[in-house]
């Protein structure tokens, strides 16, 4: 799933990888792939993650990982960082999710009564990146679907998600709802449909695998 999600990044893009699963996409980008990674705490041109003994105490990403710079990196303040996001200079963001609705609504910041550590920068990433894709497990730990007819949890942003990468499938959000685009090798359409909490449109042709 992570390797497949990494192929979503086109050459030349400016990309923000959210905390959690999306961060792992970094490991699947070739060293000379032309891309600019952005972290909302104030850096464009993120380089490889460093081990503790080589880390710079002043150089982290938004998830707190010790990262590095590459030739052409730039540092800036938090206002400039989100100016970049809100003004349309962020081509793509990959985010985690608690729930995604078939209209593209995303919930990924709060579970009332259980988990409400705050919203961080995710709200603006979700609402303003030119393209928002979700990288998530297809179901939660209890086995409940995360792809739903509508979100029950408080929204992060409405109608923002274009595509979802899970361990089972690649699913697009279309005007008609969820559409299955690709399926993981060894997975059946029935399994994906069963793990999805809303109607899943199937392609007319054979479904590619990843």
């Amino acid at each position, binding site marked *: 799933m992570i390797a497949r999600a990494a192929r979503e990044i086109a050459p030349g893009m400016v990309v923000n990888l959210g905390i959690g699963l999306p961060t792992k996409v970094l490991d699947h980008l070739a060293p000379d792939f032309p891309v600019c990674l952005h972290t909302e705490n104030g850096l464009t041109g993120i380089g490889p993650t460093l081990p503790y003994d080589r880390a710079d105490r*002043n*150089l*982290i990403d938004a998830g707190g990982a010790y990262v590095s710079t590459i030739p052409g990196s730039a*540092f800036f303040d938090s*206002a400039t960082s989100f100016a970049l996001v809100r003004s349309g200079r962020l081509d793509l963001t990959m985010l985690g999710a608690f729930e995604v609705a078939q209209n593209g609504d995303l919930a990924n910041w709060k579970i009332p009564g259980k988990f409400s*550590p*705050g*919203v961080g920068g995710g709200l603006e990433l979700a609402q303003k990146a030119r393209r928002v894709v979700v990288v998530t497990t297809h179901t939660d730990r209890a086995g409940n679907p995360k792809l739903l007819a509508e979100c029950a949890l408080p929204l992060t*942003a409405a109608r923002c998600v274009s595509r979802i990468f899970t361990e089972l499938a690649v699913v697009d959000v279309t005007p008609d709802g969820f559409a299955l685009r690709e399926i993981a090798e060894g997975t059946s359409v029935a399994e994906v449909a069963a793990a999805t909490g809303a109607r899943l449109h199937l392609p007319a042709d054979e479904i590619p695998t990843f």
Partner: protein
Amino acid sequence: MRLPDKTTTIEAAVERIAPGATIMLSGFGVPGTPFQLIRELVRQGQGGLTLIKNDANETGMGVDHLLASGQVRRLITTHIGLNARAVAMMNAGELEVEFCAQGILAERIRAGGAGLPGILTDIGMQTELAEGKPRIEIGGVPALVETALRVDVALIHAARADVFGNLAYAATARNFAPLMAMAADVVIAEAETVVPLGGLEAEQVHTPGPFVDHVVALEALTEEYGIVRR
């Protein structure tokens, strides 16, 4: 003309903070957090504080000391997920927490620093964070009105300062510092290195000196400033 010297001791600087003050603190996680100024504020013990900071640091570090000592009444922040005490105090009603989208927090602070009364934005309009906030139309499109944030005191960590208060920040330790350093009536900067006038190049200053009131030289960095292993 020469520029005045604003260096002082950490004790004298932090004594400018009154009980009940509103305070901004720079930093995103460890980088940029003014740990020594926070320690001195804990030592002096001013209570009833309202803090504005991106996060609540981690348990046992930075802002957490102020929470543990009961000096904080209210916190305006974006995310406190790495501080279990902050979450527990919030859930127990011992700490009033206002969450704000990170970039909107940055803009509200910047507006306070720019002498503007508020900002207009569509961020979070479709979410519960917009509840109760006034809306206007601009060019036929709805926008939220969010108030500017301006406080009594800003506590800022800088990598380098000159004696006039020109500041430069290191790497991602910059984050909220240049914004907060504009948005307070009294701005106190702690700096890892304090240089004489002329020691910072005019083109490489991140915060111009006129925004800064007091400069404190850090003698040595405590372990809080270091690499955090998780």
